[in-house]
């Protein structure tokens, strides 16, 4: 089998991500390997991707999946992804340890940081700290979707802020959230955490950096992004080679490219997703837009995703019950 020929079917995130991924990763890959066709199928969300992979397990039609780390870990429990062979995917060597999940079944390739968005018309002094969320001037003017990955990432951040360790207990984080809760206008910002800032419905919103930066650039700067000085944690996207892929060789080439410093650097510059590959070095302006100030960059941390995946549902339940329902 000629590895440089064939088709790679990729399933991944939709929307702007898909546009950028097509443009900056897939097209570049195809320029390198003209013999390989790459199709990109958009999926509504990672849960749906997981459902798709589960249903196709006997006869996979998908070769490569881009998927949230927490969902990836679920998928790995069902052995939906295959362990990558370091010989076939040499760029694995450049990934940090935390990024090589479940024995290289899933590998992190980018991170989208949680940030505080603000409406530039109404907020003249941007917040600088997660603690600003309890500032009384924002009472009733915050949008915070907490009952998903956002909450799951915010909990360790706030726990650390209070001097705790999420692996011991997230109680400090929960307590912090309880302080923020009365200021929250909506826990279900509609349509999403960006638009409510854009429209001025709220002043602040806890949201993802990448898309906010993109909206800041394209929508007249109404949305400002504050990356708190205490640092953030990225919502981690992983890539995985589907177990039983019928185009394994070509797919391995694609995964290898996706993990390359070149690919990740380009994607970081164009879409402000934090790169994972240790060889990538970002220019200062790009780094600032992904991680914030130098101080924030230094404070940036990552999670033990296997641990978090295990707690995922429980944490969301705690947020729902102790923070939202009690509010």
């Amino acid at each position, binding site marked *: 089998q000629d590895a440089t020929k064939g088709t790679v079917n990729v399933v991944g995130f939709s929307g702007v991500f898909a546009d950028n991924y097509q443009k900056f990763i897939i097209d570049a890959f195809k320029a390198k390997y003209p013999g390989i066709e790459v199709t990109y199928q958009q999926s*509504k969300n990672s849960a749906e991707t997981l*459902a798709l992979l*589960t249903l196709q397990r006997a006869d996979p039609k998908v070769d490569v999946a881009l998927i949230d780390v927490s969902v990836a870990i679920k998928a790995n429990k069902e052995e939906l992804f295959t362990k990558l062979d370091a010989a076939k995917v040499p760029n694995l060597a450049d990934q940090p340890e935390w990024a090589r999940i479940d024995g290289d079944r899933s590998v992190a390739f980018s991170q989208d940081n949680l940030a505080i968005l603000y409406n530039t018309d109404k907020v003249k002094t941007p917040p600088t700290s997660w603690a600003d969320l309890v500032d009384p001037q924002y009472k009733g003017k915050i949008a915070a979707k907490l009952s998903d990955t956002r909450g799951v990432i915010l909990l360790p951040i706030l726990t650390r802020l209070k001097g705790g360790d999420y692996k011991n207990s997230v109680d400090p984080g929960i307590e912090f959230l309880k302080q923020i809760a009365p200021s929250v206008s909506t826990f279900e910002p509609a*349509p999403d955490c960006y638009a409510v800032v*854009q*429209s001025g419905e709220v002043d602040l919103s806890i949201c993802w950096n990448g898309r906010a930066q993109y909206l800041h650039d394209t*929508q007249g700067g109404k949305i400002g992004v504050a990356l708190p000085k205490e640092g953030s944690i990225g919502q981690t996207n992983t890539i995985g080679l589907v177990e039983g892929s019928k185009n394994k060789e070509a797919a391995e080439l694609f995964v290898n490219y996706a993990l390359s410093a070149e690919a990740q650097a380009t994607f970081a510059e164009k879409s402000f997703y934090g790169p994972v590959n240790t060889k990538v070095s970002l220019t200062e302006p790009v780094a600032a837009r992904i991680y914030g100030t130098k101080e924030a960059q230094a404070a940036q941390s990552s999670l033990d995703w296997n641990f978090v995946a295990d707690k995922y549902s429980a944490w969301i339940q705690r947020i729902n019950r102790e923070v939202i329902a009690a509010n």
Partner: protein
Amino acid sequence: MDAKLARFAFALLITLLYLFLLAPIIVVLVISFDTRQYLAFPPESLSFGSYAKVFANVKFISAFWRSLGIGLFVGLVSIFAGLLLSLALSRHDFRGKGAINFLILAPFLVPHIVLAVGVMLVLGPLGLLDSYSGIFLAHLGITTPYTVRTITMSLMAVDRRIEEAARVHGASPAMVLWRITLPLVRPGLIAGAVIAFLISFDEATISLFIVSVKSSTLPTEIYHYLEYSTDPQIAALSVILILISVGVVVVVERLIGLRKAL
């Protein structure tokens, strides 16, 4: 005097209630002419820009055609299955009729979100998620009860003696169906098809569970669009769809009357 006052008060009450009922639609209508990129009231300045954007939105347009196609096909098949069922139920006596009647009524009562989970679980292993056949099947299940109802109503309105007259005067059973029964229940068939179409065309809940990018319908496309943005485009699209639906409803009302249809 007293009676006049009472009548005025009642008219006022009805007006207010209508206002309440139509409030969100009125708001959507007004907003559809706004020029800002988000939904707010009142509009800053008015234009038809959003309508132009809707017609230029490739996703909406292609989802529209897809929904139209699925809706038409669902309507067609649904009246076919509905007609046969109605004929069996209204023209024959047999054991298990009660059970079948219940089975037809039941989908009215089961919440779509519950059905959606089940449909997803059934279609998944069959490889029918995110496929036309999948949506078609799912929609067929929720529309057939409606078509059975409208067609049964029409059938019941047909005087059995007219069919008997045809038989006595020499028409075989097939001829009676073709020449007498079908023409007479035509309003019910059309109404059934229209209702099935509208339901399919509007259905979001179940579709959201089984549809993805490939087979997205207009309602799921709207839902996903709304996940990331709310701008006057969505208001404009809604207004367009309301106009289409109202047009269709007027046709149904003309044909058989709404009350019987729903």
